[in-house]
């Protein structure tokens, strides 16, 4: 069956932005994307280090849409419009296991609504530049347990599934502009240290971990590689996907 609308060709990724919040994820993702051939800007709300190894660093505040746009604009002024934006930025409070009955209105508002705002503003900032430059790829990354839920992580479970639905909706709206959006479910392992003490569900297999691949994928090698693929012409037929990078723990859907 032929398609009336051909899938648009994309430029190979040459400028990639990583948007992150603490935890030094930006450095790891930045190194991986640099090895994949991209010039990389890391936009982070906590300064971790100076520009090095081809990675530019930019301070970002998630307090308002204008401030997020300002940080994107600064990075674009130096590197040009991104062909790839990887977003891995969630408030730290979301990762602290808490009984649902103990969540205060203030904590719920700051962490859950705050996380939603971060995602919304970053998607909008990426769109603002990509729509002018002919398109691009946006990849959100979150812990894989979101697919099956975890007790005492109500806010994080809520936000991650919302983010996944938002990414699909963005894919539906922005595909005509050549903008493709994805969500990567990353195994916890050492990627999310604060979750290591949480009561997360094991995979469905009888018996203990490790996952079939014997290791939990990481930001630097695996997420960077998947994101580079998604942003490349080889990945241009995909949008709105949820890719599970957990070493084969869940194998869903």
């Amino acid at each position, binding site marked *: 069956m032929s398609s009336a609308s051909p899938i648009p060709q994309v430029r190979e990724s040459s400028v990639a932005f990583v948007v992150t919040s603490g935890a030094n994820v930006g450095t790891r993702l930045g190194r991986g994307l640099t090895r994949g051939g991209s010039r990389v800007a890391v936009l982070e709300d906590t300064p971790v280090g100076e520009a090095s190894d081809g990675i530019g660093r930019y301070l970002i505040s998630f307090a308002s*849409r204008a401030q997020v746009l300002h940080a994107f604009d600064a990075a674009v002024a130096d590197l040009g419009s991104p062909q790839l934006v990887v977003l891995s930025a969630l408030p730290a409070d979301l990762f602290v296991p808490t*009984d*649902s*009955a103990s*969540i205060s*209105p203030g904590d*719920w*508002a700051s962490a*859950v*609504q705050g996380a*939603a*705002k971060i995602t*919304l503003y970053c*998607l*909008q900032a990426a*769109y*603002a530049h990509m*729509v002018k430059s002919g398109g691009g790829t946006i990849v959100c990354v979150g812990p894989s347990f*979101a697919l*099956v*839920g*975890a*007790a*005492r*992580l*109500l806010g*994080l*479970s*809520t*936000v*991650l*599934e*919302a*983010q*996944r*639905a*938002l*990414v*699909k*909706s*963005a*894919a*539906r*709206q*922005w595909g005509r502009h050549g903008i493709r959006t994805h969500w990567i479910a990353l195994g916890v392992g050492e990627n999310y240290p604060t979750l290591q003490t949480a009561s997360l*569900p094991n995979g469905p297999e009888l018996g203990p971990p490790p996952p079939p691949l014997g290791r939990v994928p990481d930001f630097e090698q695996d997420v960077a590689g998947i994101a580079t693929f998604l942003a490349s012409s080889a990945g241009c037929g995909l949008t*709105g996907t949820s890719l599970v990078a957990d070493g084969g723990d869940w194998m869903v859907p």
Partner: protein
Amino acid sequence: MSASALSLAGRTALITGAGGGIGRGLALALASAGANVTVAVRRKATGDETAALIRAEGGKVLVVEADVAKQVDVQNAVAATVAQFSGLDIVVHNANAGDSAHPVALEEVTEESWHAQARVTWDGALWLAQAALEPLKRSSAGRFILLGSAFGLHGAGFNPVYAALKGGIKGFTKSLAREWGPFGITVNAIQPAAATEPAEVFFNQYPEVRAAFMRNFPMGRMGRHREDIGGAVLAICCD
């Protein structure tokens, strides 16, 4: 399944957003199965209409005025239910913000418009869970049910905010189900594609979309409030 297995006689249900649409259908379905029903509504007049329909069928009903975005309103609704019916067994969070019917471009979504919908969908869910936990623990058959949407599963080009918030309900449900399972309380979500009032508003604005959209459904129609979605709720609630 036997008739007794489908009976909710002696049980009490609280439903948010039950002044019309799906919520009203669920209230009627639960009441017809024998449950005492609290209709929690933002505008009392709509709750009174639902109550009249329930009473006409011989059901027992309490109408409580509550804005689910306000924690104290939700606490009061639960307390009033327990006081009136001596317990609470079933909670259904169905309330939804009216903005969900309007198409919106994601790049134009403001914090204010997001928050207005999130306060009802997400905040309301949390306030309800917190207020209902202790009564549901005391029940021998505690049920907490949330209304999501098919758009929360596959995204929505017409309203990304609505899709995201309903997607979030999916995560909320799975997390709470794991937390409350040890208490004997089940937590489930229903993701309907229903002929809701917001859907009708949308189709009235974009009539050309209706016919094309209906072709997605093998049965040629969307879920009916009382019969289809109410049926799913009864299946979750009955023994």
